């Protein structure tokens, strides 16, 4: 929130005044009120391997994160360019593979990648869209300077927090909304429904039947699945609510079976259909993939999108954007070292203390090492692993992440934040002005994942 010259950024001035004007204990009370609201509404996430009593709340911070209209406009353009390119890339990879023929990405990187889904070859999803719902993880390092950390093209979560954090803020600090013109986010579910409708199979007559497919109440993001189904007014299904008959998908209702046209699935590719993917999956729907191949149902996001947000493919995204759009990327990738290259690997091994090491297939903040906060022992361990399997790691410089004032036990202190705006791709691209701001609650920490002690903040995109 502080500019390079040490002044408080214009956009945060009102917040600073407001924070100063709060009575003693006022913020603490609001933080407690927020927790009570979330718990009563059941906005919890389950922790794997623990029983129901261990449903946790993701900590919510009541100081909003503010992004100016000008910065947001640039972000929007960059995100739109990126998601167009990524969908074009997916289409190409599962058809003619021009980008490989042109030598812009190595063949082995794609074809031998476990995220590549050969079953998707020559499949033509409605409107040519593969990844319909995308959550782009960004960090801000300076005025107008954002880096993309990850593209999240599979089944990104967190959008319910974007909406519920805003609801909570409007209840807790209505006076702040009077001081700022904050772009609303509440229309996201309506946009999601329109996006899903627009990608119904071409042979679907009339109003398409949409469902949300969830693994069930023990999934960590179940609240979100149920929230989105409710907000869109569609059924929330589990795998055994659906079945395939004669190449079409139906849901079991209290009356006649009902044909399903669009499935917004929140289960991973591997579990979608035991006849095509993992045979031991009990979460999916047997025969679903064949119905999809026959063009009788749309699966959102399409299977096989993981190849485009694979960490090893990430380093090629700038080339991918240029290849399909003919433009320079508007948003930067974080510079990434390729450990398979001797020179770069040697640099990495000499500078581990300054770098961030991530496992290619890791997620949720696991399997990574943040150099500046690492111990000598951890660095030795990671050096050994990098030498043994250089292709299994990507290495990036530690970014001077932007911080945001955050309420902690002792008062207000700066904490590192990232940003995940949500993008919808269907008949057009819809970007909600807002997103999920995750905050690393531990002092100095750069890891914002909720599984590692991260929290969330409401994100305010200002209107001019």
């Amino acid at each position, binding site marked *: 929130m502080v500019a390079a010259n040490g002044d408080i950024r214009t956009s945060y001035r009102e917040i600073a005044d407001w924070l100063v004007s709060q009575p003693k204990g006022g913020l603490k009370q609001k933080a407690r009120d927020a927790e009570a609201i979330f*718990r*009563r*509404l*059941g906005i919890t996430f389950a922790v794997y391997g623990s029983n*129901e*009593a261990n449903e946790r709340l993701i900590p919510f911070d009541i100081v909003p994160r503010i992004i100016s209209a000008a910065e947001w406009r640039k972000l929007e353009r960059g995100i739109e360019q990126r998601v167009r390119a990524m969908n074009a890339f997916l289409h190409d990879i599962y058809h003619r593979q021009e980008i490989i023929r042109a030598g812009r990405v190595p063949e082995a990187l794609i074809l031998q990648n476990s995220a590549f889904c050969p079953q998707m070859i020559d499949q033509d999803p409605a409107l040519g869209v593969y990844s319909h719902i995308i959550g782009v993880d960004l960090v801000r390092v300076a005025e107008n300077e954002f880096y993309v950390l990850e593209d999240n093209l599979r089944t990104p979560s967190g959008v319910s927090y974007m909406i519920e954090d805003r609801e909570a803020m409007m209840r807790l600090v209505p006076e702040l909304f009077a001081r700022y013109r904050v772009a609303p986010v509440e229309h996201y579910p309506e946009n999601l429904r329109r996006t899903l409708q627009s990608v119904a199979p071409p042979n679907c007559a009339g109003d398409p039947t949409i469902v949300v497919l969830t693994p*069930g*109440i023990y999934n960590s993001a*179940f609240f979100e699945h*149920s*929230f989105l*189904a*409710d907000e869109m007014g569609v*059924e*929330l*299904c*589990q795998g*055994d*609510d659906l079945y395939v008959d004669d190449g079409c998908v139906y*849901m*079991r*209702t*209290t*009356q006649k079976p009902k044909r399903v046209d669009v499935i917004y699935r929140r289960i991973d590719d591997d579990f979608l259909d035991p006849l095509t993917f993992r045979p031991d999956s009990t979460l999916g729907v047997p025969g679903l993939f064949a119905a999809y191949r026959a063009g009788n149902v749309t699966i959102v996001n399409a299977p096989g999108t993981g190849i485009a947000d694979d960490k090893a493919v990430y380093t090629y995204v700038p080339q991918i954007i240029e290849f399909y759009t003919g433009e320079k990327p508007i948003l930067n990738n974080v510079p990434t070292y390729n450990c398979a290259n001797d020179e770069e690997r040697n640099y990495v091994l000499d500078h581990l203390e300054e770098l961030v090491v991530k496992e290619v297939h890791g997620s949720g903040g696991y399997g990574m090492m943040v150099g500046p906060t690492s111990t000598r022992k951890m660095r030795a361990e990671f050096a050994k692993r990098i030498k043994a399997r250089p292709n299994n790691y990507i290495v990036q410089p530690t970014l001077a992440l932007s911080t945001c004032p955050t309420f902690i036990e002792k008062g207000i202190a700066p904490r590192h934040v990232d940003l995940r705006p949500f993008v919808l791709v269907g008949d057009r691209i819809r970007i909600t002005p807002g997103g999920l701001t995750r905050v690393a609650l531990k002092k100095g920490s750069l890891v914002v994942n909720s599984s590692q002690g991260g929290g969330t903040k409401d994100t305010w995109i200002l209107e001019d």
Partner: protein
Amino acid sequence: MLGRTASSLYWLCRHMERAENLARLLDVGYRMSLEPVLDGSEREQWDSTLQAAAMASAFFERHDSVALPQIRDFMLFDETNSSSVRSCLTQARSNARSVRTAITTEMWESINTTWLEFSRIRPSSISVNDLPTLLDWIKRNTAQFRGAMLNTILRNDGYSFCQLGTFNERADNTARILDVKYYVLLPRNEFVGSEFDNRQWSMILRAASAHRSYRHVYRDRYKAWNIADFLILRSEMPRSLAHCYRWIDTTLRDLENFYGARYQCHDIGQAIHDELKNGDMEVVFQKGLHEFLGGFISSNNALGASIAENYNFF
């Protein structure tokens, strides 16, 4: 509506109803334990409470002796007892969570808050003296849930499945309370009216929250015949079998109109309703009260199974 959604609504309301009934049964058991034992042993007294709750065999598998603390823990807190209040609330909340889209915010907040608060209670912190307060709390919260349901839910098929769950469970419960003590209700006792009988009758009425309303309806001292009549055939008594089946019959008709289809469950429901509506205590006693109640309990179960099958609960 998904078959699973219908099933979850039905079971959500059944479990809430069951939790309420358990609290009432335990309350009666607790009162009896404060009074001197008149007939048989303490064990026999508790045995009837456990039988009315349909958990006697499960209890005696785990415990050799019987006393209030064990009963309290088993009926309220034991997670291995699938009918304990804790299990009922947990299952009700799981059902509610899986159909958040089909219930109102008020219903969700009511069951969620009840579950959260109950989860925080440490059984060891509940002394015998605290028990009535806790049981009142359970009755109050389950009543609040039902109030939230009746006040906020749309009158469509979802509402019908909620009502079927509630009244299917309540009818089962009332029939069990009567059946466990059927022998004190036989007409031969009519002229005896010993202190023992009086206490047994009072217990039966209390377990159905009917000891006050009895006086309003009969304006007389407790009589076995009246008590059986009150809890079986009087449809104005909200826990009577006749009342439950008046609702079940109405609700099944609503579903028939809503979906435009009639199934086996409609015939079963209507048959039971007709039998109660045209019932006569004379006939019931001639047939044998115990036989009548046993027959009712199994027909009531058959109705539940048939609803599940006809509406694809799976």
